């Protein structure tokens, strides 16, 4: 009498072949609980079935790597016996359904990933994508997501020190919410999710289990359609207060000699945490659901095993240490219970009131899920996208007006409305707050600081996934370097459409190759990451968005640099050269409403030389400010350096060589490998010499002075003033644009 119908199999998002595979593993038909467990573990979200074969190509090793991909988070050595533990995760689908709770629980999840490793979280960054703010729905999504991140992160006492937001209508029905978290741990006290030691007790602690988010993991592996309304009861509600208690309890548990392994219950809850821990140790686990703390009395084994209630953890304690573990959890007012033992037979066996309700080889469930080599092909539309004839586009006439509208466009405008809602100073480490190229937090007890940035220009990625991925890696590293940090590690969150489509898979495969090449070139290992597929609604897919979170080390915290000008009279120096890189630029989008062309040219050797050169200058104390050129090009970078300082606005007078280029390319083109420095006059010669020595193009282009931004272009004959605006006006347009848009609406 089989209870498993074809309908049930389909409802669990399993294919016929996958179901056959389950029968082979078990040697029998699964019962409903087992079917549910397979379905969550073999979902795209948990099993990486479409991405695994490609992710393997990424460079993950390096002298500093303490923990690469495969654990809850990656870890990188920063010396002094310490390491940084970091990861980025997406919570896109839940945030579309319920923006506040979706974003909040996203923060909760990434925090748990980091503190389960034994690290105290010290920084969060958020990377967001929404449709344009001209619709009420998009405004609602953004407000909800931002307050959800604030609500959770602020309460936890972990500062949100940076992030990025890009607006593009392609994200209207599939907004992206990616959150990065970094923690600090002792190198020799990293904890892992392993169920070693037959006989050791398995202990559940944290919140009670409710019927929240059942099938959250399969939902995240599903495209939206008009029926997704019905999936709504799967929304989970976060309780940051409970998570704060969980954090403190975990760190106290880890300080003693009590634990063998520990893992948070994220997607697929009790099922994933137990089978993954067992599988990593080559062991089994026997769970007795009778003891699982629950919010509602009549929950079935199916519900208990699949619930995604937040703020829960599973630990394997050393035998005999149960009581100490329970006491610490109770001190922090947490629910806690011994719910099982480690066994030697490799089986995840689940009992409820004495009867076995599920019995599955742990490794088969955790690691032997399906793996697909999905087909991929260059989509025919790609040619149309890259085909851009700039000769048909008139050059800029009123550069002042264009600069103002770029600064006002929501992607470039200041994100102060957002980050002023985030506590970005708690823990008193924040040396560089949101508003510079990278955030910097000092490491107490050392002279060091850590810089962090999240970056991805997804329009570049859409126009050319391989180039876009390389450009993202380069920009992230450049942002760190401009702060005085050496890039030491990377985490990613790869947001794509439906991998069953060959064009989407093509984007994915090229992205991986681009990341691989760029990371190898810059010698930055990828130590953790996350894949989010099915960001697609009614067949319309997002731009490929491989969000990167890169971490850099500053050996001497007092050599940290920010992007804004410091003093009247300083030189303004440009490193790098302009080309005609208008393809995929913010300028073309804002002024010409075109998202077309080839993304900017990137030469990795030039990029690396630039990084080494800038770092050496900063370390030698020659630099007052450093800012990379990205969205909006050189004119926007200069404006940002003039107006983004915390205390005052400073003007600049600059002359740029026009050469044979178009004016708009010089002002707003997004040529890569460029940095705007400011420096005291005494350092001019040393800066010029050290750049020339390593072949980095360098020019003194002007000086910090007055209260206007004045830019002239020097053609064949004489210089022509093309931009001349009071910095206060630039500031007003840029700083309050988002606030105005939200309030006027």
């Amino acid at each position: 009498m089989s209870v498993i119908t074809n309908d049930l199999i389909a409802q669990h998002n399993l294919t016929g072949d996958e179901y056959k595979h389950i029968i082979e593993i078990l040697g029998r038909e699964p019962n409903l609980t087992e079917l549910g467990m397979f379905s969550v573990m073999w979902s795209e979200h948990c099993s990486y079935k479409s991405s695994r074969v490609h992710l393997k190509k990424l460079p993950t090793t390096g002298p500093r790597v303490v923990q690469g991909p495969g654990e809850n988070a990656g870890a990188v050595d920063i010396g002094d016996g310490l390491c940084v533990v970091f990861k980025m995760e997406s919570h896109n689908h839940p945030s579309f359904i319920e923006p506040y709770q979706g974003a909040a629980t996203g923060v909760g999840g990434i925090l748990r990933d980091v503190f389960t490793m034994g690290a105290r979280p010290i920084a969060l960054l958020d990377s967001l994508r929404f449709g344009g703010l001209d619709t009420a729905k998009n405004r609602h999504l953004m407000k909800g997501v931002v307050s959800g991140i604030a609500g959770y992160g602020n309460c936890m006492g972990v500062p949100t020190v940076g992030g990025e937001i890009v607006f593009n209508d392609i994200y209207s029905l599939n907004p992206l919410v990616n959150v990065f978290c970094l923690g600090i741990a002792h190198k020799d006290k990293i904890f892992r999710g392993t169920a070693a030691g037959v006989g050791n007790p398995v202990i559940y602690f944290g919140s009670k289990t409710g019927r929240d988010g059942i099938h959250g993991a399969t939902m995240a592996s599903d495209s939206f359609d008009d029926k997704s309304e019905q999936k709504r009861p799967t929304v989970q509600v976060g309780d940051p207060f409970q998570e704060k208690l969980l954090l403190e309890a975990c760190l106290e548990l880890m300080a003693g000699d009590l634990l063998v392994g520990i893992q948070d219950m994220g997607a697929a809850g009790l099922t994933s945490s137990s089978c993954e821990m067992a599988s990593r140790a080559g062991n089994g686990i026997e769970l007795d659901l009778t003891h699982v703390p629950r919010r509602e009395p009549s929950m079935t084994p199916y519900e208990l095993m699949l619930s995604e209630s937040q703020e829960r953890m599973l630990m394997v304690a050393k035998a005999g240490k149960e009581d100490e573990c329970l006491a610490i959890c109770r001190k922090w007012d947490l629910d806690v219970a011994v719910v099982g033992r480690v066994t030697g037979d490799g089986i995840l066996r689940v009992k409820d009131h004495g009867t076995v309700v599920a019995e599955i080889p742990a490794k088969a469930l955790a690691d032997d899920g399906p793996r697909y080599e999905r087909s991929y092909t260059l989509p025919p539309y790609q040619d149309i996208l890259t085909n851009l004839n700039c000769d048909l586009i008139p050059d800029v006439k009123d550069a002042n007006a264009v600069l103002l509208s770029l600064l006002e466009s929501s992607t470039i405008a200041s994100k102060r409305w957002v980050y002023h809602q985030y506590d970005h100073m708690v823990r008193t480490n924040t040396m560089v707050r949101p508003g510079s190229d990278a955030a910097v937090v000092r490491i107490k007890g050392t002279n060091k600081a850590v810089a962090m940035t999240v970056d991805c220009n997804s329009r570049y990625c859409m126009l050319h996934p391989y180039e876009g991925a390389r450009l993202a890696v380069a920009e992230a590293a450049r942002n760190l370097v401009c702060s005085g940090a050496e890039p030491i590690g990377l985490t990613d969150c790869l947001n794509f459409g439906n991998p069953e489509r060959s064009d989407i898979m093509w984007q994915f495969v090229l992205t991986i190759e681009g990341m691989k090449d760029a990371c190898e070139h810059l010698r930055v290992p990828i130590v953790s990451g996350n894949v989010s597929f099915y960001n697609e609604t009614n067949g319309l897919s997002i731009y490929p968005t491989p969000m990167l979170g890169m971490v850099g080390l500053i050996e001497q915290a007092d050599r940290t640099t920010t992007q804004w000008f410091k003093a009247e009279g300083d030189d303004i120096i440009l490193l790098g050269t302009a080309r005609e890189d208008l393809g995929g630029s913010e300028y073309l989008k804002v002024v010409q409403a075109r998202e077309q062309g080839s993304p900017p040219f990137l030469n990795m050797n030039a990029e690396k030389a630039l990084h080494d050169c800038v770092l050496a200058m900063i370390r030698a104390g020659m630099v007052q400010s450093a800012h990379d050129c990205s969205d909006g090009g050189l004119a926007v970078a200069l404006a940002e350096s003039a107006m983004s300082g915390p205390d005052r606005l400073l003007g600049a007078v600059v002359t740029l060589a026009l050469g044979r280029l178009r004016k708009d390319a010089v002002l707003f083109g997004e040529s890569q490998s460029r940095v705007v420095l400011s420096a005291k006059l005494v350092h001019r010669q040393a800066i010029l010499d050290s750049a020339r020595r390593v072949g980095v193009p360098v020019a003194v282009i002007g000086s910090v002075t007055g209260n206007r931004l004045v830019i002239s272009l020097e053609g064949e004959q004489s210089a022509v003033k093309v931009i001349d605006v009071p910095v206060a006006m630039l500031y007003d347009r840029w700083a309050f644009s988002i606030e105005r848009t939200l309030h006027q609406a």
Partner: protein
Amino acid sequence: MNIGVVVFPGSNCDHDCQYIFRDVLGQDVTMVWHKEASLTRLDAVILPGGFSYGDYLRTGAIARFSPVMGAVKKYAADGGLVLGICNGFQILLEAGLLPGAMLRNQSLHFICNDVHVRVENAATPFTSACKPSQVLKIPIAHADGNYYTDPVTLAGLQANAQIVLRYCTPDGKVTSGGNPNGSLDNIAGVCNAAGNVLGLMPHPERCAESVLGNDDGRLILASLVEGMKKAKPQTVGE
């Protein structure tokens, strides 16, 4: 000198206070768990910022019933120095150690930003290192800092110089433009009638080191350290 920092479930500036007093200002610091019913040999007590009990129901409403708060009341009644920062201020209000209550910020948003405050009373043990009317730049980080009290109480606060800090513009003008959250009379910090209990919304511990780019907050913390030396040591039992 020994400073007690109370740890409520959900406190999250407790480590920051510990760090600044111990590692930067060189004082002894004792972390006091909220379930402790007595405060022994402390020269001052800090109620730190954070989200005690998640700030559920109202900020500070549940924490005020923690066992330690009985001891804090006695400690304050005996003249001990008590400083409540942000959530600590909110707890002091709910506990009745300071008059008034907090409403949501006028913008309804959490606000994290530098603000300016003017020292209205430089004669308290918490402000003695400041000059009268000195303007300090100190960050705030809260969603409920919109101070309210009834007109009679307000008049009393004004008359007794209990308004210690007021939000102001960078050049020291107490105007609505300098008021970040709608607080009544631009109140950023008030003390009790005896002057030994201060609550303030801004976070001096976040701006007391030059590596963080601002050390204005140090004036308040250093005042407290000086103030402790003058006050007699306190022990409060059950």
